């Protein structure tokens, strides 16, 4: 049976390279369904990724795709969007990719409010390299480079994106796929810098080192640690530390960078060629 997914994938690249139970496939499906709901023309879509398991997503979708260098997907996408603002540019990153090596690019893309959609698959670990802790690994959890437990305080990407100036910020999970599709769709449709953080699972690296070896264990865990934004707001500070709020956190209108640059072009041209 042909599904909506078949319309958007590069079949020759399957089976994919992800481990059984990995959340990346769920995210891939959700992105495709969101795009299909929006009826976007495949020729107008550019998908850009960095490095890591999640970034291999760009190999599987039949758009103009680019698997760039570690952490740098956003500046590559910035160049593409500036050069051709008509293109719809989606950026897929992992948690280490986006918040560690690419952290500076992330806050500056948000600051500029350039019309890109950043999708961050947060499995709280460096999966591809073997389970090292990332800036989004919760304090106290284990990684191959945190054999005695992680002492780092983790970033809250949602708060970071809001503080840095994004237009749309949401958090979803691979457990609640219907909500995820709807959040991605709104982010894609939003003019300006939009961010969707997706809590995902890595049973092979994160799960193995944190007593959740099976994908089912991990999905149950994701269900347990996430609550709606409304419920989260009523929690005590201690309870909040153990939970992730899920839903839409920001949806505001601010001029997109490429629109502002069009104004610069007008101003420069009014002044004439030689001034």
């Amino acid at each position, binding site marked *: 049976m042909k599904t909506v997914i078949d319309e958007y994938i*590069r079949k*020759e*690249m399957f089976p994919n390279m992800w481990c059984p139970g990995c959340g990346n496939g769920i995210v891939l499906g959700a992105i495709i369904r969101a795009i299909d709901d929006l009826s976007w023309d*495949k*020729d*107008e879509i*550019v998908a*850009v990724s960095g*490095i890591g398991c999640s970034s291999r997503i*760009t*190999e599987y979708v*039949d*758009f*103009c*795709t*680019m*698997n*760039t*260098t570690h952490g*740098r997907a*956003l*500046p*590559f*996408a*910035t*160049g*593409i*969007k*500036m*050069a*051709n603002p*008509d*293109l719809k540019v989606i950026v897929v990153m992992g948690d280490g990719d986006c918040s560690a090596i690419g952290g*500076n*690019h992330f806050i*500056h893309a948000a600051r500029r409010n350039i019309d890109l959609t950043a999708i961050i698959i947060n499995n709280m670990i460096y999966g591809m390299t073997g389970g090292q802790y990332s800036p989004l690994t919760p304090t106290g959890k284990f990684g191959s480079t945190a054999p005695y437990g992680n002492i780092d305080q983790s970033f809250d990407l949602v708060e970071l994106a809001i503080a840095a100036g994004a237009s749309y910020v949401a958090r979803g999970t691979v457990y609640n796929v219907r909500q995820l599709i709807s959040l991605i769709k709104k982010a894609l449709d939003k003019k300006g810098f939009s961010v969707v953080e997706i809590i995902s699972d890595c049973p092979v690296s994160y799960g193995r080192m944190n007593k959740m070896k099976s994908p089912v264990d991990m999905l149950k865990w994701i269900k347990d640690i996430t609550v709606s934004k409304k419920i989260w707001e009523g929690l005590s500070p201690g309870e909040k530390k153990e939970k992730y709020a899920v839903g839409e956190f920001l949806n505001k209108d601010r001029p997109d960078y490429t629109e502002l*640059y069009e104004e*610069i*072009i007008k*101003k*420069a*041209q009014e*002044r*004439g*060629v030689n001034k």
Partner: protein
Amino acid sequence: MNNLEKKKNIKLLQGNEACAEGALLAGVKFFAGYPITPSSEIAENMARKLPKIGGKFIQMEDEIASMAAVIGASIAGLKSLTATSGPGMCLKQENLGFAIINEIPCVVVNAQRGGPSTGLPTKPSQGDMMQARWGTHGDHPIIALAPSTVHEILTLTIKAFNFSEKYRIPVILLLDEVIAHMREKVEIPALEDIEVINRKKPTVLPEKYLPFKPDEDGVPPMANFGEGYRYHITGLIHNYKGLPTSNSQEIDAFIRRLHNKIQKNIKDIIIYEKYSLDDAKIALIAYGSVARAAERAVKLAREEGLKVGLLKLLTIWPFCFEEVNRLAQQVDLIIVPEMNLGQMVLEVERAAQGKCRVVPYNRVDGELINPIEILGKIGEEIKQ
């Protein structure tokens, strides 16, 4: 109106301004950069002039991001430029490699200052010659050009864009603080008098397009993103379709083709100029601002009756191996003055193959090499 009657467009320009003028003539439409002396005037000129022609300028958060944005804009169809100096050039290396493996045309200016690290802001140096060749990791080809006058900055910037578009490769333009900041008379050519090369586009329909299948010249036609050709670009070694490969035959063919597309066109790419070399027994080989002093030293030596000539390198990489080899058979001595402790002299020695004596002359104190010093070095070597 014939060419003789045409009014010449002569301007007094700073080196960095001439670079911006050359880029505009070549068709630049995008610049991404980060402030650093002695290259900042290129960014400032681009910020002012690009929007006037509908182009785009963006100041990025760092040099890594600038290089990435330049590549992104080029893939989306705009001729793209970035400019920096040593510390920034170090940061650009990562994505420079991405541009090389994906054959993305772009031009990167390095206005050299003394290093390593923060080094000598802002005094001239030629310390980044080998970085230009091998700065980014892995086996890779590169094209690097080094002008020695402000006028040459303009003409070689145009060349840099043309090479990058023709051969689908990033081209490095190596300035040094002296020529980047000095002002000289420049004759700005009319657009109709210059050659402007644009990337080859695919001639097949999108479903037949293989983005990394080379034509006979070794260069694959390039579809820009958004033109209806959907394909993948990756920093992984890839097959004709642009998809990652672990097939050893495909890997080998890919890496060799990247090199060969440059190697088999070296006659087109290698540019040099000869001064008084016909009867020379001593040759100077120089580039960048040092070539100016070397040219003067040749005149002074000739006045003293010494048979000295100059080979001025304009293309640094690929290196003009054959010409230097031929020269080594003609002369008794080659002197290579450089503002480093001997970088290009290593290539000269390799090319000379022991057929004549090769002697370096170096300065690393942040001061220019002047003609009298070179003349002194010639005298000293003759005595030996």
